[in-house]
C-alpha cells in the first residue's frame, strides 16, 4: 500500500493541469454563491412575513440551521451529482487510452495501490469542494448565531455524499475506455440513486421491505439526518458500506483486465 500516495499525487497533478478541475471548481463556487444568496433571500422573506403577521411563536421556531444552512447543504449535494462525474470520468478510462494501464500493471504496485490512490485523489478534490461549501455558512457566523456542531455535521454529510460519488464514478470509469461513457454512466447511476426514494414512494414494488431497502440505498435520508445534526453510526455505516463496496467492485474491475 506504500504507493497509494504516488498514484494519488500523479492523479491530482493531472487533474490540475487539465481545465476540468478549474471548470468544476469555478462552477461549483458560482452555483454555491447563487444558491446561498437565494436561500438567504428566502429566509429573510420568511422572517419579514412572520414579523408582519406578528407570528412570534413561529418566528421563535425559525432557525438558521434548519431553514437556511440545511437547505443549502442539500442543494449543494445535488450539485455534486452533476460535477463529480467530471472529476472521476478520467480516473481509470484515461489510463486505458494513454496505454499507461500497462505501465501500472507491470510495475511493482498492487491493484489496491492503484484503486485507493485514485480514490484518494478524488477524495482530496471533494474535500476542496467541501471547503467551498463551508465558506458560505461560515459567513453566517458573523451575522447570526447558527449551531456550530449541527453546521459541521451537515458539512460532514455533504462531504460523505461526495466521497460516495467519487467511489461510484471511479467504478464507472474502470468499466470503459471512454471518458464520455464513464461520465454518462456515473451520471445515470447517481441519478438513479437520487430518485430511489421517489420510486419507493410510488410503491410499485408492493412489498414494504423492498421500498425500505431502496430508501436506505439512497443518500437522501442519510444526508437529511446528518444535516439535522444526527450523527448516527447507522448513517456513517451506510457511507462506509457504499464507499467500500464500490472500491471493491473497482478493484475487481481493474483486475479483470488481466483475465480478459
Amino acid at each position, binding site marked *: 500500500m506504500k*504507493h497509494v500516495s*504516488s*498514484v494519488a499525487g*500523479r492523479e491530482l*497533478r*493531472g487533474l490540475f*493541469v*487539465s481545465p476540468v478541475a478549474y471548470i468544476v471548481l469555478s462552477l461549483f463556487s458560482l452555483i454555491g454563491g447563487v444558491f446561498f444568496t437565494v436561500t438567504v433571500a428566502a429566509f429573510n422573506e420568511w422572517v419579514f412575513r412572520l414579523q408582519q403577521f406578528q407570528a412570534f411563536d413561529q418566528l421563535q421556531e425559525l432557525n438558521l440551521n434548519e431553514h437556511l444552512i440545511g437547505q443549502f447543504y442539500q442543494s449543494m449535494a445535488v450539485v455534486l451529482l452533476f460535477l463529480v462525474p467530471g472529476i472521476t470520468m478520467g480516473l481509470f478510462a484515461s489510463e486505458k487510452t*494513454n*496505454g*499507461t*494501464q*500497462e*505501465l*501500472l*500493471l*507491470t*510495475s*511493482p*504496485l*498492487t491493484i489496491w495501490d492503484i484503486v485507493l490512490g485514485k480514490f484518494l485523489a478524488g477524495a482530496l478534490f471533494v474535500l476542496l469542494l467541501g471547503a467551498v461549501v463551508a465558506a458560505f455558512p461560515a459567513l453566517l457566523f458573523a451575522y447570526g448565531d447558527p449551531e456550530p456542531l449541527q453546521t459541521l455535521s451537515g458539512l460532514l454529510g455533504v462531504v460523505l455524499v461526495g466521497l460516495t460519488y467519487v467511489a461510484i464514478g471511479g467504478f464507472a470509469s474502470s468499466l470503459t475506455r471512454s471518458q464520455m461513457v464513464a461520465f454518462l454512466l456515473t451520471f445515470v447511476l447517481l441519478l438513479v440513486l437520487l430518485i430511489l426514494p421517489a420510486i419507493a414512494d410510488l410503491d410499485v414494488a408492493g412489498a414494504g421491505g423492498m421500498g425500505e431497502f431502496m430508501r436506505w440505498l439512497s443518500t437522501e435520508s442519510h444526508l437529511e439526518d446528518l444535516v439535522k445534526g444526527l450523527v448516527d453510526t447507522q448513517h456513517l455505516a451506510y457511507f462506509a458500506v457504499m464507499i467500500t463496496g464500490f472500491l471493491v467492485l473497482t478493484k475487481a474491475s481493474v483486475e479483470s483486465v*488481466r*483475465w*480478459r
Partner: protein
Amino acid sequence: MIEARQLSKRYGDVHAVQGVSFEVGRGEVVGFLGPNGAGKTTTMRMLTGFVPPTDGTAVIAGHDIFSDPLAARRAIGYLPETLPLYPEMSVRSYLEYVARIKDVPRRERRGAVDRALERCGLAHVARRVIGTLSKGYRQRVGIAQAIVHDPEVLILDEPTVGLDPLQVREIRQLLRDLANPRDGQPQHTVILSTHILPEVEAICRRVILMNGGRKVVDAPLAELTKDGRSLDEIFARETARDVTAEPLEGAR
C-alpha cells in the same frame, strides 16, 4: 535471468501461445521474431506480469511471476507496444513518477532520472511536455521509462516501429549501448520483439522465432546464418506453415 516454462495463453478457444519455454542468460540480447499474431506480444505480456499465463510460469531474475510478482516486476523494464505516456506531464516529472512506482529509493531518484535522460538523449527536452514531442522523441521517452530503474531485464515490444530511418538508427545505437557491458559487467538482459529482420542482425546475437503461438526456432544468429542463408529465408521457411488454427491436442 529469464526462464519461461511451458508458457501458454488461451483466449476462449484461441491458443495465443502454446507451451513456450526458453532461457535467457545474463547479458544476452535476444531477438523475438514472428509474423503478426504469432504470440510475441502475448508472451512478453506474460513475462512482464500484465496478463497471467493460462498454464506454465516464468522466473525473472530468480523471482517467480506467480509467487513473487512484485519482485519479478521490479526486475523488469518494459516498453509495451503502445507507449505508456501521460501526454500532459513533462518528460522529467514523468520519469520521476515511473522511478517512484518502480521502487527507486527517494534519494536515488534524481540521479536515476538524469541518467535515463542522458542515455536516451533527452536531457535538452527534459522540461518539455510529452504531448508536444515528436514521435521519435516520444519513443525515446518510452525507452527511458523502461531503463530508469536500471532493471536487470529489458523487454521491448517493437521499439522502432513507426520511426523514420534516421531515428531507427539512433534507437538501434541506443539499444546496442544498453546491451554492451559496462565496467566489464554485462548490464541488461534484453528481449526485443520486432519484425524488422535487419534490426535483429544489427543488435541481437540470438533469435527466437515464433509462429502460431509456438516457438519454432531458438538458435544463435551466427549458427542460423552460417551456411550462407539469410534471416529472411529462414523466416519465410519457418513461418510458411500456418499453424494458427490447429488445436492443441490434449490441451486443457
